[in-house]
Structure formats: C-alpha cells, structure tokens
C-alpha cells in the first residue's frame, strides 16, 4: 500500500508543502504530475517506488498511470544517479564542435558509460539531446549547472572541482 502522505511523508516538509501548493494550482490535479515528479526526483535523487506511490496517492491516480507518464521522459529516472549527474550533449551543434571527443574523455576519466554511476556514487554520466546551449557548443549540464565551450582537456578540472565539492559536502554533513 502507498504510505499515508499525512503521517509518514517521504518528502521533507518543504517539498511536501510545495507539492501541496502545486496540486492546487491546476483545474485538474493530474496536471501537476510532471513538476511533482521532477521536484521529488531533485530531493530524493530518483523516482523510487515509494516516490511513485506517494505521488499517485497525492493526485488520486494509479501508480501505473504515474509510470505511464514518467517512463516517457528521459530526464526522469528510476535508479539513483551520482551526486553530480553529468549530461553531455551530442546533438548536432555540439557534435560538430567535438562533443563526442568530450564525451569519450568523460567516459575514460570516470570509467563509466552512458547512464553509469561511479562506484563512490559521486558521478553519473549521460549522453543527452540538445540542452539549448548550442551557441556555446559543446555544452554539458551537471545537475543544474551549465558548462560550455568545453574541450576534452577541460574534463579533469571539472571533475576535480565537483569531487572536492562532494568531499566538503560530505565532511559538512559528518561534522
């Protein structure tokens, strides 16, 4: 059974309040489905079975219907990604300006392929379609950060920057 959203929400109070507000915003509750999934994924990291059940419960539709919609979108995922999800665009503009070399370099450095996650859980890698940054191709997106006009040699620096961010965040959370 889906958890009772009142008593044992799997979401933070802030997210729960945000989702409640979202549902009110549309004439039909289910219109809030996609933003709800996205926000829930941002907090939990992926669309776990529990997230799907909780969202279905809040909107009053079946879990199957939530999955019908969620599986359509490549930006919604059903397995945990790394702490930093690197999305490398290989669409035409980026491709013409060396996106494949960039993507290959990421694969070499991280030792993972498309949709892979590093063993320490810090990074995941994805080859994606156009992210709307064509003017500054080749571009990538790390979580919500845009990095552009890259070349393969920018990769080590990008990785070490995020690695240390992960480290300090880890220390902060242990302190």
């Amino acid at each position, binding site marked *: *059974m889906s958890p009772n959203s009142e008593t044992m929400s799997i979401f933070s109070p802030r997210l729960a309040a945000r989702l409640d507000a979202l549902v009110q915003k549309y004439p039909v509750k289910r219109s809030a489905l996609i933003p709800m999934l996205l926000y829930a994924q941002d907090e939990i990291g992926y669309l776990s079975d529990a997230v799907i059940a909780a969202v279905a419960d809040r909107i009053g539709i*079946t*879990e*199957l*219907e939530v*999955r*019908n919609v969620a*599986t*359509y979108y490549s930006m919604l995922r059903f397995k945990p990604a790394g702490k930093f999800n690197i999305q490398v665009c290989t669409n035409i503009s980026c491709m013409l300006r060396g996106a494949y070399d960039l993507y290959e370099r990421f694969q070499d450095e991280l030792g993972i392929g498309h949709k892979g996650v590093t063993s320490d859980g810090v990074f995941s890698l994805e080859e994606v379609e156009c992210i709307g940054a064509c003017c500054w191709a080749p571009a990538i997106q790390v979580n919500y950060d845009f990095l552009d006009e890259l070349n393969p040699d920018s990769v080590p620096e990008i990785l070490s920057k995020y690695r240390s961010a992960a480290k300090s965040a880890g220390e902060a959370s242990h302190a």
Partner: protein
Amino acid sequence: MADVTFTVDGKKLTAAAGTLLIEACRKAGIEIPAFCYYPGLSLQAACRMCVVRQEKVGKLQTACTTTVAEGQVFITESEEIAQARKATIQMLLGNHPLDCPVCDAGGECEVQDMTFKYGAGESLYAEAKQHREEQQWSPAVYFDRPRCILCYRCVRMCGEGMDVWALGIQNRGVTSVIAPNEGDHLDCEQCGMCIDVCPVGALTSGSYRYKTRPWEMTHVSTVCTHCGDGCKVTLGIRQSNDGSEIVRADNRDKGGINGDFLCAKGRFGFDFVESPDRLNTPLVRNTQGKLEPATWEHALTTAANKLKEIRDNRGGSAIGVIGSNRTTNEENYLLQKFARTVLGTNNIDHQRTADYAAFARALAGQSGKTAGLRDIGAAPAILLVGGDPTQEHPLLAWALRTDVRLNRARIYVANARNIKLERQAKAVLHLTADGYHNLAATLDAGSNDFSKAVLAEESLVVVLGPECPGTAIESLVAWGLKRANVKFALLGDHTNSRGAADMGLFPDLLPGYIPVSTPAAFAEYPGLQAGAGKTLPEMLIAAGANQLDALLIVGADPVATTRMASESLKNTFVIVQDLFLTETAALADVVFPAASLYEKSGTVTNAFGDVQLVKKAADRAGVKSDFEILVRLANAMGIEVKSLVPFSKRGTSADLGQTRGAQAGEADRSAVWLTANNLEPRLSPFDPLAILDEIARLVPGYELDRMNLYAGNDVRTELGATPGFVPVSALHNSSLIAPAHDTLFTSGTLGQYSSALHELEEHQKNDVATTAAD
C-alpha cells in the same frame, strides 16, 4: 444533428453532421482499414491506417477522427493511399515477428489481413528484429510483446470500458510497451476484454492459446450459462474423442444484448463441461446401498416404477419436485407440467434468488413496465437499488458504465454496501441493511438531495437488487407506477432464475404467475390440483419427518445450499438429474447424467425478461438433456408422450388441429408455421422447441416474436402480461429468497467444477494478499 451530404469515392452519402467519417463509410458499406479505432472507445489516431484523401486538404486525413460536414469530398482508395498504408504496415512490421503460422490470431488477425491486402510482407529495414519472450500476466492473460502494434485498444478497453485501468503504456518511441499494473502481472477483473479487442496476437488467452486455428472450429452462438444477464456467447467447437468439445468462448457475434462484452465467467468458465467429475452414466443405488453405474433403461424403469407406485398408493402429495435456475424455459415448463399432470402434485419449487412472484404481483396488469437490458443500456437515468452489478451482474455493470460514458446517463445508487459503480453514479444514498423498505417513502419525501435529483428525472429505470425484500419491491414498484415513464427490473441470479419463476416452478403459481386455485387456461391440465403445494424448505422438512416419499430434483443441490442434515433424506426416494455428483446427488437413489446448457437447445430468459435461443454447441457421450430425461421418465411411467410434448408426427403434412381440439393439433400448427418460414418441423418429442407453441398459448407474456428468436435475436417477455391480480400468498416471504451473491469468479455448482475460474480466483486472492502485506 442535421443531416449533411458528402461524397465518398464518387458516391453521395448522407449522415448526421459530426458523424465520424469511418462510421459513416462503414454504414454505407465502404470499408476503411483501422487498427486503433474501436467503436465506443475514445479516439486515439495512433496507427494511420485509416488515412483518406479529402479534397482541398493538403495532407491525408485520418478517417477515424474526421467528422463529416456538408459538401466534403473524399477518396478512400487510390495509389497514394495504398502506398501510405503500405508504409504504415512496414513500420508496424519493423519489429513484428510475422509468426502467423504459430500465432493464435492467425486467420483472424487484422495486421495479417492488411499485409495481404497492401503487400508489405518484405521489409525494407535492415535492422534485426528485437525478440522478447512472451509473458504471463495472469492465468487468463498472456502478452507477446513483439506482436503488439501499439494501437492502445487494450488500454482504452480496460480503462474506459471496464473502469479497471489495469493496463498502461510505458516508455516512448520504439521502446514503447504495454504494461500491466503490477509490474509483471495483472491485478484486475480478468475479463479478457483486452484480449478480445487486440487486433493481433499480442494479447492471448490462457484457455485458448496454441490449441487450434480459428478455421478448424465450428462457431455456435448461444447464451452464457453463468449469471442472470444472459450474454450471447460464441463457442468454438471441435471434434473430440467423446463428442465435440468447446475450445474457446468469445463474442464474435456482437449482435447480442452484450454487444462487445463478456466477463471472465462467460469467456473462460466453460471448462466445467470437460471436468473429469462430469457424470456420464446413470447411477442407481444397489441392494448394498451403493450408487453404481446402470443402463439408462434400468435407471429409468427404477425411477418410473417407484414414482408410479408412490403416486398410485400415497397420492401425488407424497412426491416433491425441485427445479433448477439453470435449465431452459422448455425444461422448466415441462418439469412443472410433469409434476402437475403426471405426478399429480403441486409440491414444486426452486431455489429462489429474487422474489419474481412479488415483482409479478406488483406489476400485474401493467404493460411495457419492465426494462430489458437494451432499455437499460439506453436509459437516460437509472436508479440502482441494492445489488453489486460489477460482481453479480457484470453485463449490467458494463451496460451502465457504457450508458454513462456514451450517453451521459445519470445513475443513482441506493445501497447498504459500498459498490464500485458508485464511481459512475451521479448521487449515492447509503442505506441501512433494512433500509430498502423505506426507500420509496424517502424518495417521495424529496427532502434530501438524492431524492430531489431522482424526482427531477423525467424518465427512470429502477433496477432492484437481490437484497430487496418483496415488500420493498412492492413499495418501489408502486412508487414508480405513480410516475410516468418508469420501468423496472429485478436482478435474479444464475442463467435462468427468471425463467424458472416465469415457468411456474412454484407450489402455488402456474406458469405466468397464475394461481393454481384459479388456473384459467391451465384448466386443460388433466388432474391439476387446486391446493397449493409445499415450498422447497417445507418439502425438505417433510422429507425429514418421513412425510415425503419421493423427491425429483433437477439441476439443484438443496443439501448443499440449505445445509440440511443429510440423514433427513434417508427415507425418501430421491431422483437427481445433474451434471455432477453433488452433495444431493450423492444421497440419491437414482442419478441421471444431465447435459449442460452448452450441450442442448431451448430458450432462457435473463433477469430482465430478454428471451434468447440456446443452441446446442458441444456434445458429450453419455449425457441427455433434462428435457429428454423427463420425456423418457414419463414414457417409462406409461404416459402417452404426445400429451406431454405435442411434437409433430407427420412432418410437413400437418393438420390445423380444429378437429381434435386446440392442444391435439398443436404440434402440427408448429410444423405449418415452421415450414412456412423455411425452418425444420419438430419431429421429435425430445426437441424442446416442440413445446414452445403450448408455452406461447398458455403462458402470459410468452407469445414471443419467434422469427427473431430463431434468428438468434433477443426478444422480450412481459411480466405484467399476467391478467388481473396475483394474490399475496403465505408461500412468498423473504425467507424463501436466497440471492447467490456470486462474484466474478464463482458460479454456484458450475463454478466449483471450473478450474479456469478457480485459477483466476486464486490469482486475484494472492494478489490482494501480497499487496496488503507490502
């Protein structure tokens, strides 16, 4: 809407403005291929097979979404269109295995037909086909993913049609896939509707898959033997070692009262006929007190001699007869005629599942006041009092849902339980368990929103569930009769409860609810007793008190249903006609193996008074229809069979019967009518239809439209046709009524012997159990 005129392939057509082009063309005999379009379901426009050229429009248009308007001009077949359709098929076949030689759908597959027609058998794609293993989603539903053409028919049927929403579609593009609600299996009503609408062999049925090919079967349209709704079902028959067997049940013939619909019982629950527990030889209790196989002759003589002896020495009142809810009208009629004229007793009853006698009494003298299923399916407003149609009357539930969806009908639910149909209801009134009595008063008062809404309706069908006691039936019918445009229906269980009541399986009422005390036309029955006989419980009590010497039980299991002590039948000579060795049959002295509804012909009347023809489909060595058994029993008692069943002796040379009285010439009249209509005359006393003339003549409401009946259409019988007044009788009280409360997977005795239904029930039970444990 106003009619408009438009041109299709050079022909001028007329249709209401706003009609879908594809429908307008179908009506005019112009076929437009369509994979995703399905009449009655929402439009999908997913397949592009129905493309046509519309004048002055740049691109090809989909006929399944184009609505007709004045002056339009269309072309439905051309080089360009054929090319477009061929391209569509090529895309569909990109992953489709074309394994027609082993596919269940081969021979009745829409993709196969279209591939033949437009010729895209050779693919231009270089990519390898992706194979996926078939999946079993439930005992009834299997999925072969590569064959799926993503038409969404199954998704819409399950959601919109069944209101179950168990199927979805996941991913997108080439990876799109139909998915069941529980990940790898289905938690649903197991109706098989998704299999039925699937245009290809992607969804296949557990009971039929890999068994045969469609052209190897004979297809017989008959009536489902399970609930009281009486769906028309097409049985696929094949020769077997001991006769012919049923391989499949579906509804190829969509002209019945059920249209597209069949539930799990109608579709999968036919396998009881093949049960190894079926009786296939008569049994007679030997001197050691053991039931042992016997010849028909021995069993018939034993039973006949005993009945004769008891009747002659102790009188007919020492014999009781219990009839069935699932035998045909002809058999029920014959049974009561046999009881009343041969055995000389009014001790006859059946297990009543709804109070049709009270219903008939409330409606006596009224005409046009009962609603058939077709009326309900088109009614603008329905008041549903009691009952849980989704479980107990699946077709009624389907008709109501469809009526809401397509005609915006309004349903009002007054019930002591919470039922699924509330989801379609405009208003719901929760009653206490005995609140049905006061409902009429509540409605009249008009003091709550529910009754206000009901009172505001200009016409209404009141559907009375089985838990409505006789008093509630009477008060609600009286309430409705005061208003204009109110029709009624009363929900009985099993395939022919209504027929059993209509045909007079009552101790005090003759066929047509005519009191035995004032028998009117039935005065011609020789030896008819005027006093009421014993009810079913009274017969059992009398048997226990050694006051009933013989009991003839046809298609009923009173020992099980009344939970009576088995010793109480110790001193009664019990004769049972049944399919199985039921608890009652096990105590009997003589047991006759009876044919099931799928193995005989006749007519049945559903709960709503729709009469339909039952056609013999399967055949089984060793069994006989209850009709034939009764005729043989009467014959063995020395009765002139023709007095019981007026069958024709001389075939087509018939006399009109004037010289020998109405009854004597009856069969010949039947023969005249039959030959005039190019039908075969009834030449055998075992032909149940030979007695239809007598039923038509004597039983009020049963002067049926026989041409339509024989053509396989449903025809109406009128309850209110009983002239005058049906008296209130002490023999009718609610303690005699026991609704079956069958579910989607149970069906009285028959259900117990259906392994298909058992498996479905288990599957659903386990599913509920695992979900609850999560």
